[in-house]
């Protein structure tokens, strides 16, 4: 099949899909007489990705495959489709998620140990309902507590192909970055810069 035609077909297929499509999955859209192989698809996808560079939409590859999505630079305008702003996650939830991401498989007690406070069951439940985490096994200690790990959906949500793409755990940080909500530029206060 002609390169340009293949690109257009893939563009039409992926843009009308409601989930990411892997190369294997994309192959099933073609019949033998279409004469399309994995490499053709790979090449066409990479051309398409280049083509959409710097535009309002992007073709990205996540853990489950390729999908089109709007570029984050324009979220300010795109979110006006909906009356409500997406919910902000609490720090407790994010810290719990961070521990599961970087220390998986991990038990709830281990999370509590590092954070120094109890983890509410609502946080675990919310993360499970979002399908970002799941129980991956049980620890062979008394009570056989669940071991928690992240899912492929988590990677898909955060535009990641694999956990390797997560930023590495940082070294010790300065305080302004750690407590942005407190506006701690203590000596000279910027008076009205907070939103």
């Amino acid at each position, binding site marked *: 099949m002609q390169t340009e035609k293949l690109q257009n077909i893939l563009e039409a297929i992926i*843009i*009308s899909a*409601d989930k990411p499509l892997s190369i294997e999955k994309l192959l099933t859209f073609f019949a033998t007489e279409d004469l399309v192989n994995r490499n053709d698809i790979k090449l066409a996808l990479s051309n398409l990705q280049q083509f959409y560079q710097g535009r309002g*939409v*992007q073709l990205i590859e996540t853990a489950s495959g390729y*999908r*089109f*999505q*709007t*570029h*984050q630079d324009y*979220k300010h305008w*795109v979110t006006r*489709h909906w009356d409500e702003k*997406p919910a902000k*996650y609490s*720090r*407790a939830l*994010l*810290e719990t*998620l*961070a*521990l599961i*991401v*970087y220390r998986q498989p991990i038990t709830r007690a281990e999370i509590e140990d*590092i*954070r*120094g*406070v*109890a983890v509410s069951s609502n946080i675990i439940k919310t993360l499970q*309902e979002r399908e970002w985490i799941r129980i991956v096994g049980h620890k062979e200690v008394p009570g056989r507590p669940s071991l928690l790990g992240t899912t492929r959906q988590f990677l*898909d*949500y*955060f*535009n990641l192909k694999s956990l390797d793409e997560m*930023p590495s*755990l*940082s*070294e*010790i*940080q*300065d*305080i302004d*970055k*750690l*407590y*942005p*909500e*407190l*506006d*701690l530029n*203590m000596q000279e*206060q910027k008076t009205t810069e*907070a939103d």
Partner: protein
Amino acid sequence: MTQQSEPLPHQPSQGELPFAIVQGEAISAPPEDLYIPPDALEVFLETFEGPLDLLLYLIRRQNLDILDIPIAEITQQYMDYVELMHKVNLDLAAEYLVMAAMLAEIKSRMLLPRHEEVEDEDDPRAELVRRLQEYERFKQAASDIDEMPQLGRDNFLSDVEVIREDRQKPQPDISMQELLLAFQDVLKRVDMQKHHEIEREEISIREKMTHVLASLDGHKFVEFQTLFNLKEGRLGVVVTLMAVLELLKLKVIDMVQAEAYAPIYLKPVGSSE
């Protein structure tokens, strides 16, 4: 915002720096004349995710080296904050008190005379420092994760019109069980947010609402009485009436009557005259 009737009686020891700007208000570890709006104080104290977080803040605030914590001073400040939380009746998690006890213990051990050859690992602060450093890394990781672009918050899926071939596509089957399980799932989720009452009677009213709306579709006016099917019996008539009332309440239909005792007509709201 309610003003506290008297100044907070307790003064933390390090008063020279404002400890935060909360909702635009400077909160100092309070000077004599400052009245702290209790709400703002609560916001401030609630920003801590636990004792490690609070300790880390106290250390970082003074640019202290985490490896060389002046334990007596930090313990004092920590206790001040815990007391402050207690004063404003903030639900004080037990963990804060456990930490207080731990700090007190470290402090007392540090007061004991030490031998020259004592190694670093024997520093009673070592375990605390290790935990603080470990916690700090994940605190940072959490805010890094929050900054990563996320589907549904920063990126959105494409939703385009699909031109497809007009051929018979296989239609999936569904069972009543599947449908009910799906509904049960929604209900479970809704239960957590708000309570939705869905009664047995209501479904027949809702179905009737659909029927009434459908029979108004495309008509300018429909006479009220023609909506009732006497074959449905007394209950059917009542259900139809309730459906009409519900639709009126929702402002989906209008009811008009030219004069008293004249026939009553219904029409969809917004339909052209």
